[in-house]
């Protein structure tokens, strides 16, 4: 099937908007920039809609555009803090009070890049390793390594809850 008109395109975007937001937010960690990235991604996707060969691949296709747009905006725009250089969220509460329970999302937000992004795509969006590799323009080996390291970090952060 081929997407043929604006209405069908808009429907597909609405079905994927949560995933688009999760991905964009995992990279820039603020709503304003995430909104800007999603908006730009929608324009780009619409412009190049004919290059989408299979409607069933819409979700990984649009997420790849979101990822590329976010990375590009970070490179061009110095007001967005580059990936990997974002300071961790304050964790004083956790360290000072071991009874504090973190939500998984808070734990994920404490990870650095690229671990946040692969965790969001794998655990929240239920995407396969090969799809994540496509979206993040890497390969399956890299994604597996990133997931493996992210798991170790999450286990450490969530050890009070998971009892490991």
């Amino acid at each position, binding site marked *: 099937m081929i997407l043929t008109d*604006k209405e069908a395109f808009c429907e597909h975007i609405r079905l994927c908007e949560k995933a688009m937001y999760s991905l964009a937010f995992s990279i820039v960690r603020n709503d304003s920039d995430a909104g800007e990235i999603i908006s730009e991604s929608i324009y780009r996707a619409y412009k190049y809609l004919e290059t989408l060969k299979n409607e069933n691949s819409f979700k990984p296709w649009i997420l790849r555009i979101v990822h590329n747009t976010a990375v590009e905006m970070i490179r061009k725009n110095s007001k967005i803090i580059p990936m990997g250089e974002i300071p961790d969220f304050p964790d004083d509460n956790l360290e000072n009070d071991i009874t504090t329970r973190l939500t*998984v*999302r808070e734990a994920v937000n404490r990870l650095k890049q690229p671990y946040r992004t692969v965790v969001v795509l794998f655990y929240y969006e239920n995407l396969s390793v090969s799809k994540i590799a496509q979206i993040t323009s890497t390969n399956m080996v890299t994604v597996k390594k990133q997931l493996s390291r992210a798991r170790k970090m*999450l286990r450490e952060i969530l050890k009070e809850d998971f009892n490991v």
Partner: protein
Amino acid sequence: MNNFDEYIKNKAAEEQKDIPDIVKKRIEQTLADLPEKKSVIKQIHIFPRIAAVAACLVFITLFLLPNVSVAYAQTLGQIPIIGDIVRVVTIRNYFYADDKHEMDINVPQIEGESSEAVDYINKDVSVLTTALVNQLYKDLEITGNNGYGSIYVDYEVTTNTERWFTLKLFVSETAASSNTYFKFYHIDKKQGNIVELGDLFNTDKYSDILVSEIKKQMKEQMANDKNVSYWINNNGTGEEFAKVSADHNFYWNENGDLVIIFDKYEIGPGSMGNPAFVIDRDVFKDILKSEFKDIVF
């Protein structure tokens, strides 16, 4: 899925949150601003006609001509075709993990019609992966708890059409530093042969032509982005890039252009990862052997 993955996925499902209003409004505004798109339904409408013509051609080529022409039937019978290879399965997984070492090696095997090409690839993959496994165990014996290391091997079938088959093997090793490299195996199904880069061209000058084009792209990238760095000339900081060997890694992209891919550290510092350069078909079309001119995916 292990317990921890299951735990995180369940928690993630419970914690799903709605998109903030500010972002939702932005999305709706963007969608509202999109212009109407011209319908592409016409392409779909003409498809049955194209399909009908194609079906007639297939009938004439495969059924009618062999039955009315002895010469044609003999010719058709001589064309070596690797048919429906080509299912690739993981026949073995080597896994090892301790606090300082990790190994996860998936060994693929091409299944289907036996041929020299298929047998060669299966054997080559087996030899390579066995060597990597043995190397890790040897390192473990030597360094014990004093060293760190990991190795991952996985694969992907990047092309599997009636005309062409490509298996891509990834190898990623980490010791003092990390290194990722690839191995591409190609089978020309029409000829039944393994094809390497040098086999594609009718002259040895292909290396000079590709190097010239790649250097041009390297310079453009470096001019446009100060973070990009390649070792183009021997300037004391790296090795000169002067040759693309006959067995260099490549693959075809969907336009029928060549993509030449390099190992980490091969033509630039580690920060460049595994650089890949798309070589437009126009650059090499004059030296491409006639049997490969029809390759477009």
